């Protein structure tokens, strides 16, 4: 590898890191505005706007993330006296680095570079899925270490809760992905995307998709599974003792992981950058303007499709956060071990049976699989619903006092 290639790689990595952090910044704004509208409020709309002719203001609050960043940068940086200084300082880094490096294994689109590569897929690893699973669960070290190093009982409880929760949901997450891997017959992320050109995995793997959504929400400790930072019980959870930019790093890792999880869901279940019509359009542009323009058009269109799908899933995340109250700790563990894990195993079994019995790529069995998944999920929600035991007072005639 000569130095030009290394330089190109460095620039690409810088672009990806900046894109991920920008995405995070604007996702916070997206979430705050949307959550506000869900709650009948307006949300932050003061910092900056795009002026329109006629005195109208478009996108009020467009500079809110910048204002927040400036505020966090200039806050006082306090290190607790009894904290384990170096571990305390390292923990935000532990949290944010895995969140950022998740992105290299996700194919963000398909922009062929002319020599068999893809500009929008940084690391086409043979075991891309394993990489994704490993890196997403490594992120919990940052949280656990932060809770321990702060030397604060609330932070400690938050860290312990985080590790317990992530370990519990890791299994269901991995098994739901296993169904996709069996469906596509490959561990390469771009292979899975290519296998979905005819039909997205959400149809045959509907049950896997639902399990993945729930487990990934728990994996990134987001509402309704945000027991790690349940402020009614744990003050701020693992980041109680963190302020200024160190807190911002935790915040950032949490949100980048959330977007990355949505991006993984798009890759695995919603066809990645595939959208009917992109191939034809880019072929037309190739015919008119040459192969470079055609490739660029294809890359941009598939990136756009990918981002639109990710945004839709992010909308779903915000919607669920606005709706569902936080679960109790025993409910959380119950859902993970007693419901999601057997369901995921059942999904693997169904996928295996269908894979053996029916030929690869047959449409009707795939739809049948989706329908079976839907039925199983509906049945589970009916059967596993917590039984409402009738509470009451039983009146007992007491012995008359003598």
């Amino acid at each position: 590898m000569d130095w030009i290639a290394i330089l190109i790689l460095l620039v690409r990595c810088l672009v990806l890191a900046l894109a991920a952090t920008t995405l995070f910044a604007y996702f916070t704004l997206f979430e705050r505005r949307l959550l506000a509208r869900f709650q009948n409020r307006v949300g932050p709309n003061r910092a900056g706007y795009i002026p329109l002719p006629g005195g109208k203001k478009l996108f009020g609050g467009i500079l809110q993330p910048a204002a927040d960043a400036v505020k966090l940068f200039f806050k006082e940086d306090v290190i607790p006296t009894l904290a384990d200084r170096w571990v305390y300082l390292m923990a935000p880094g532990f949290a944010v680095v895995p969140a950022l490096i998740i992105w290299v294994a996700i194919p963000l689109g398909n922009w062929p570079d002319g020599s068999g590569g893809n500009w929008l897929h940084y690391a086409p690893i043979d075991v891309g899925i394993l990489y994704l699973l490993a890196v997403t669960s490594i992120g919990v070290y940052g949280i656990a270490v932060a809770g321990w190093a702060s030397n604060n009982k609330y932070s400690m409880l938050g860290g312990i809760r985080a590790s317990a929760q992530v370990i519990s949901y890791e299994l269901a997450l991995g098994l739901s992905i296993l169904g996709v891997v069996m469906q596509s017959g490959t561990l390469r992320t771009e292979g899975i995307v290519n296998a979905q050109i005819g039909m997205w995995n959400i149809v045959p793997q509907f049950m896997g998709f639902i399990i993945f959504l729930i487990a990934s929400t728990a994996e990134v400790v987001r509402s309704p599974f945000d027991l790690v930072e349940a402020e009614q019980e744990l003050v701020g959870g693992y980041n109680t003792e963190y302020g200024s930019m160190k807190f911002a790093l935790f915040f950032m890792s949490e949100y980048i992981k959330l977007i990355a999880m949505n991006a993984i869901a798009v890759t695995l279940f919603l066809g990645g950058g595939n959208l009917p019509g992109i191939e034809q359009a880019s072929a037309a542009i190739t015919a008119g303007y040459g192969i470079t323009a055609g490739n660029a058009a294809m890359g941009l269109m598939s990136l756009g499709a990918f981002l639109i799908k990710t945004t839709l899933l992010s909308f779903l995340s915000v919607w669920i956060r606005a709706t569902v109250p936080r679960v109790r700790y025993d409910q959380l563990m119950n859902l993970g071990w007693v419901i999601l894990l057997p369901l995921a195993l059942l999904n693997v079994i169904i996928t295996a049976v269908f894979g053996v019995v029916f030929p690869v790529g047959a449409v009707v069995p795939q739809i049948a699989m989706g329908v079976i998944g839907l039925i199983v999920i509906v049945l589970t929600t009916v059967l596993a619903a917590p039984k409402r035991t009738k509470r009451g007072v039983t009146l007992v005639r007491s012995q008359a006092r003598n």
Partner: protein
Amino acid sequence: MLGALIKGLSTTFKYLFKKPVTVEYPEVKRPVRERFRGRHELKRFENGMERCIGCSLCAAACPSDAILVIPAENNPAAPNSPGERYAARYEINMLRCIFCGYCEDACPTNAIVLEHQYELSFYDRKSSIYDKSMLLVAVDKGHGEIPPVLQQLNRRPSPPAQIDL
């Protein structure tokens, strides 16, 4: 369980299309109630004379000692107010004022009225003191006839010594 989830999601989704209840304050100001007690104003009579006769009853009634009145004798040729005296200086410290409205109750000529302006903020304590020029309404904003008792005094000016007794 699924039904409850769908019900909850559809409820929040409905709220997405409702108009937010937020009042965007600096642009939109909610009207206050008629009896709201905000910033004071010193009123005038219909003919432009000041209603304040410098009696200092408001300063006496004030529980937080926020009002300063320094009266002076009216010039009979060009009186500031009906009657013998007027307020040469009239100051209210808005940081001390608790907007209780006792001054309004104490005033015999309805000169001081707590109006609806509530945006009172300052960069330093000095500018929290509102003097007479800030409190007094414009000459053409007066209302009401001068009551007979003040007109009577106007006809029969008493020497200063009589007031001091």
